[in-house]
Every structure is written in C-alpha cells, then in structure tokens.
C-alpha cells in the first residue's frame, strides 16, 4: 500500500511565460488517469442519473398538472367547476385598525377567527375568497373606507405556480439569485484552491478551501432560512396553501420543490463536510504540488453540485 504522502500526480511541467504572469507553474499536467479520478468520475456519472431522475420527475409532474390545479383564490387542487365566476378580494394592507377590517371580513363572509387572522397576516397578498361579484365589491369598498387597501379580483387558474406571482408561488427569486451567486463564487474559490496546490502554494490553497467552506455554509444557511420562512415563518394566501404555510403536503409543487431542493441541499451539506475535512488536512501540510488528489476530487464533486444548482435554479425557480 502506498504511504499517505505518496505523490498522486506527476510533477507539473513549467512554462517560462508563467512566471511573467505570476503563475509559476501550470495548474495541471494533462490530466493523469489515476484510479481515484476514474472512480470519482464514475460516481459523478451515477449522480447525473440520480438528478436526471429527479428533474425528469419534476418536469413530468409539472407537465401533467391539470390546467386548473392552481388558482389565485383557492387552495391547490380545489375543484373549481362551480367556482368559475366567483370573485375574491385581495387585501394589500389592513389599514390602521386591523380589528375593524377583520370585523368587516367576518360580516361579509362568515369566516372564523383563524381564517380571518390568516388573511390579515398574509397582507399584502391576503385573499378573501368565495364571494359573489356584488359581495366582493361591497367588501372591498367597506375595507377601503376603513383605511385598508383592498381590490376585487377574478378567478385565474394555472397548471403550475407562476414565477413572480405572489398569489400562487411563495418562492423568493431575489433571495435565491443571491444564493446562486454565493454558490458560483464558492465554485470559483474551489478551483483556485486546486490551482494553488498544483503550484505548490499550500497557504493559498488552505485559504481558498476555507473560503469555499464558508461560502458553502452561507449557501446552506440561506437555504435553511428559506425553508424556515416557507414552513413556519410566513403566512401565505390560499392560492399557495390552505393552511397558510408552504409545507410538502399542501400541493404537488410544494412536494416537488422540497424533494428536489432538499436532495440538492443534502449534497451541498455532504460537500461542505468533505471540504472541511480537506481544509483541516491541508492545515497539516498533507497536500503538495505532487499530492493533491483529495483536493481535486472534492473540487470535482463541489463543481458538480454547483452545476446541478444552476439547472435547478432555472427549472424550479425561474421557469
């Protein structure tokens, strides 16, 4: 068995021009096919299949969703056959006296306290549903007289929650765009760590690895925050969830969202732990310009996780 500090890579050839550009050596000799690297790529090939299955299932669920599965007024999968001409009132703001607004809603709809509290908490996207045109107009006028901001809306349906539609889609694209930036930056710091150790710069490698771990941790933290907001932190209108919370059981979209992003999050978590171990090993001086297989393999995995997120961000959040 080879010792732990045995070289895993041949000495990289140098180029005279490299020094002039501040790059003393090449990042890599032309990719030696070590058994470990072959195993890593085979593993990534299985991961491609895994995520293809997940994303494919998501697309089928989305494509097969009936055109009236989601609406701006009623919870997902509500049979809308008899509700085609019903109206609703969107509460933009409850005004200075929410109690009076609640009374007005109760008088117009007969809804219970809990349901009305959800409408008020969901403002500026609170929805009072199940109204006739006349009832909705009267309620909106009454609420506006009380200083609230309310408007009458008609029923609109869709087969899947549309992006940027707060009545059916609770996902924050702004927050996730920032999170995507963070993951892409972590991918860049990762490749810079590999580049540094290939040139024998151990301290720089450790620094870049630490940056990657921190950025990966921030990505996970933002995802946990997003999950908390969806599951507990906010109250959403009925078009998103009948209970006000976006949980896996409330709709097919919710179930698909948590499955796909949850599995990706698990992969990110595994990557952060792996990178943390690699970072700690780098502090002991274990890696060198001829022995950096662990850094390289961890990097390959991390970049793969980044590639998957790039696709998920587009398919789940933006489309």
């Amino acid at each position, binding site marked *: 068995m080879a010792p732990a500090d045995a070289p895993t890579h041949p000495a*990289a050839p140098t*180029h005279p*021009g*490299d020094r002039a550009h501040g*790059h003393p*050596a*090449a*990042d*890599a*000799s*032309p*990719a030696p*096919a070590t058994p470990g690297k*072959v195993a890593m*790529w085979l593993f*990534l*090939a299985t991961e*491609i*299949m895994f995520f*293809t*299955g997940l994303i*494919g*299932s998501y*697309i*089928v669920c989305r*494509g*097969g969703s*009936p*055109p*009236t599965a989601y609406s701006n007024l009623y919870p997902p999968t509500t049979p*809308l*056959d*008899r*509700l*085609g*001409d019903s109206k609703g009132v969107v509460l933009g703001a409850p005004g200075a006296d929410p109690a009076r607004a609640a009374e007005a809603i109760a008088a117009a709809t007969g809804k219970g306290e809990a349901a009305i509290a959800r409408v008020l908490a969901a403002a500026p996207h609170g929805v009072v549903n199940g109204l006739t045109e006349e009832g909705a107009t009267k309620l909106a006028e009454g609420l506006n007289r009380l200083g609230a901001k309310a408007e009458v809306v008609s*029923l609109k*349906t869709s*087969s899947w929650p549309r*992006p*940027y539609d707060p009545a059916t889609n609770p996902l924050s*694209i702004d927050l996730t*765009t920032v999170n995507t*930036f963070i993951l*892409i930056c972590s*991918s*860049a710091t990762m*490749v*810079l760590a590999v580049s540094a150790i290939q040139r024998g710069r151990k301290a720089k490698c450790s620094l870049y690895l630490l940056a990657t771990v921190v950025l990966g941790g921030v990505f996970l933290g933002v995802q946990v925050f997003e999950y908390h907001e969806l599951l507990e932190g906010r109250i959403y209108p009925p078009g998103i969830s009948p209970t006000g919370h976006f949980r896996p059981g409330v709709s097919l979209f919710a179930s698909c969202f948590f499955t796909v992003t949850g599995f990706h999050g698990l992969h990110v978590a595994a990557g952060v732990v792996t990178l943390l171990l690699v970072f700690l090993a780098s502090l002991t001086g274990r890696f060198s310009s001829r022995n950096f297989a662990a850094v390289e393999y961890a*990097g390959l995995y991390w*970049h*793969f996780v980044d*590639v998957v997120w*790039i*696709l998920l*961000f*587009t*398919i789940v959040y*933006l*489309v």
Partner: protein
Amino acid sequence: MTETAEPTLPVAPPTPAMAEAAAQAEAHAPYLKVLFGLMVLTILEYGYARFFKDATGPLVFGLVLMAAVKASLVGWYFMHLKFERLWVFLVLLPACLLALILTALLFPDFVMRQEPLDEPVRQAPRAPAPATA
C-alpha cells in the same frame, strides 16, 4: 515492504508538445473571467425571467439556454474538462445518453395529454328559474 507499481489505465502518455500546450493554456486559465461571465449570465437570467414571465415559450427557451451555457462553463473550465482526455468523456457519455433516453421516455407523459392545455374553467350549470303562475 516492497514497492509495487501503481496500476495504470491503458491511456497513452501525453507528448511533450501536448504537455507544453496544456500547461500554457492552464496557467492562464481565466477562472476569474469565467466567474465574471457566470455572474453576468445569472443577472441576465434574473432580468430575462422578469421580462418574459408571461411568455412561456421564450421564457423556457432563453432560460434553459443560459443555464446550459453556465453549466458548460463550470464543467469546461472549473472541472477542467477542457484539459481532460477522452476517457472522461467516455465515462460521462453513457450517463448523459441514459439521461437523454430517460427524458425522451418521459416526454409523452406530459406532451401527449388528453385534455387541452388551455382548458377553461367550466361554469356551473345555472338552475332554471322557477315558473311563475
């Protein structure tokens, strides 16, 4: 302990010219330029999704295209596929082919549906007005 030779794959070693070319290219690897490109593409995606949010066709086409470019940039430069030999692509090819076949097999499930996509909400049948004497 006797030293045993590392098992090697049947891959031809690079020629000095290949090594030189790869080394030169790799030393100038434009990682920060790629990062900048990825950032710009992400901002473009964000703006594009806002602009075309109600036009499904252009939305899907444009966003998937931009995502594919971003994924390719990460794979080509960050994962060093640019400098890999044929064997890596041979490892990835079956997985990508199977992924393509899987997607193609799923395609009828969401394309060949019975109901039209723009099915309107059905109106409730109105009760006949009571007859007056």
